[in-house]
């Protein structure tokens, strides 16, 4: 791999390329699995570096995600954990947090919750699989939860972020749940469906087709970046 390509790849990861150059790199990534893998690893490294700093230097509008999905999943889980542990470490000296840990009961079930009930519970679900069983279960369980919280008058916000194979769930041509998604989006104002633009772009380039997303979904740049950001903001993360 040439140095020129190296530079381009880095510029691509950092979102510094023009749309034309970006498309060129995307095509190169598609043609060369080794290059795609490298792009992915570069991107992972970048994300991890960002996690290491509270405020990442510079603006990272939209980070790239090359071909190899398993690495994305690994990067995601890794970042989740780093975020969690870093959070624990940062708050380690805080007496309130120590108290909170002491509150945990011996059998793992709990008496009074440490987080006050008046606080809004915010959960981001990360859907990365095209498994229909998993998607059906997810909708059922989320609806049960929305109902239960509503019945108890507890505030709740839920987002379902789809990327990679999980994007099928929100694709007009492929989703088996369009009706259900629309119905739930209408009924529950505190439920949001979110689609990853990186995945949309990748599918477009790879298969040369138009990708349509159900109108009930919002589109964000990067699904992985988004769920990491949500966790930084204190959202609970659950992978589907």
């Amino acid at each position, binding site marked *: 791999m040439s140095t020129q390509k190296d530079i381009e790849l880095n510029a691509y990861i950092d979102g510094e390329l023009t749309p034309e150059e970006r498309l060129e790199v995307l095509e190169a990534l598609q043609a060369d699995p080794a290059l795609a893998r490298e792009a992915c690893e570069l991107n992972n490294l970048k994300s991890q570096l960002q996690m290491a700093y509270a405020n990442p230097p510079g603006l990272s509008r939209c980070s790239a995600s090359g071909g190899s999905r*398993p690495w994305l*999943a*690994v990067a995601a*889980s*890794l970042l*989740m*954990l*780093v975020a*969690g*542990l870093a959070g*624990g*470490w940062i708050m*380690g000296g805080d007496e309130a947090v*120590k108290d*909170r*840990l*002491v*509150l*945990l009961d011996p*059998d*793992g*079930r*709990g008496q009074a*919750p*440490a*987080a006050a009930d008046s606080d809004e*519970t915010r*959960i981001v679900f990360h859907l990365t*699989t095209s498994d229909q*069983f*998993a998607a*059906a*279960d*997810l909708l*059922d*369980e*989320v609806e*049960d*939860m929305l109902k*239960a*919280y509503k019945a108890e008058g507890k505030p709740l916000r839920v987002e379902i972020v789809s990327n990679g194979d999980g994007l099928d769930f929100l694709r007009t041509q492929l989703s088996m749940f369009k009706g259900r998604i629309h119905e739930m989006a209408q009924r529950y104002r505190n439920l949001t469906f979110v689609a990853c633009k990186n995945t949309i772009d990748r599918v477009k380039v790879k298969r040369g087709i138009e990708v349509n997303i159900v109108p009930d979904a919002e589109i964000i740049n990067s699904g992985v970046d988004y769920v990491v950001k949500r966790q930084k903001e204190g959202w*609970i*993360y*659950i*992978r*589907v």
Partner: protein
Amino acid sequence: MSDRRSRRSVLLALFLLALAPGLRAVGQPTPVVYDINFSEPRHQVNALHNLQNQLSEAHGAVRLVVVLHGAGLSLLLYPEAMDHTVRMPRANCGDQMAARIDTLRDQGVRFLVARDSARRHHIDPMIDLHGVDPEDLVPNGLAELARLQQRGYLYVKP
């Protein structure tokens, strides 16, 4: 592929968890919640290995809770109960799986079962699932995962 991926993620997770005790007050076991909503038997067995490895590694410095919801209930579902369930892909709790579960329970691992999921799949947790007590039932699996994380549990998706 998905197996390899999950194994890798879990290895990384366990590596990071190994660092966790140093970051917390000494003597305070690290609470960890495992999320099982999948039914593929090898995937489930791998998850049980992860639990055992973490227990062995932590020497009691960890408290493990597993939340079973959706298709994950298949982990404790007796094969003979499969007939009367609805939309349940598998029933994995044969003798061997039951023995694995018992070994983990003996070491203090708790298996919590989502009541909503049981109802939806026409499963009677007290009869169809292996060794479940009333106090192992939680109303909703996702809400329980959220609640435990809010209370300081680290989240692992095997």
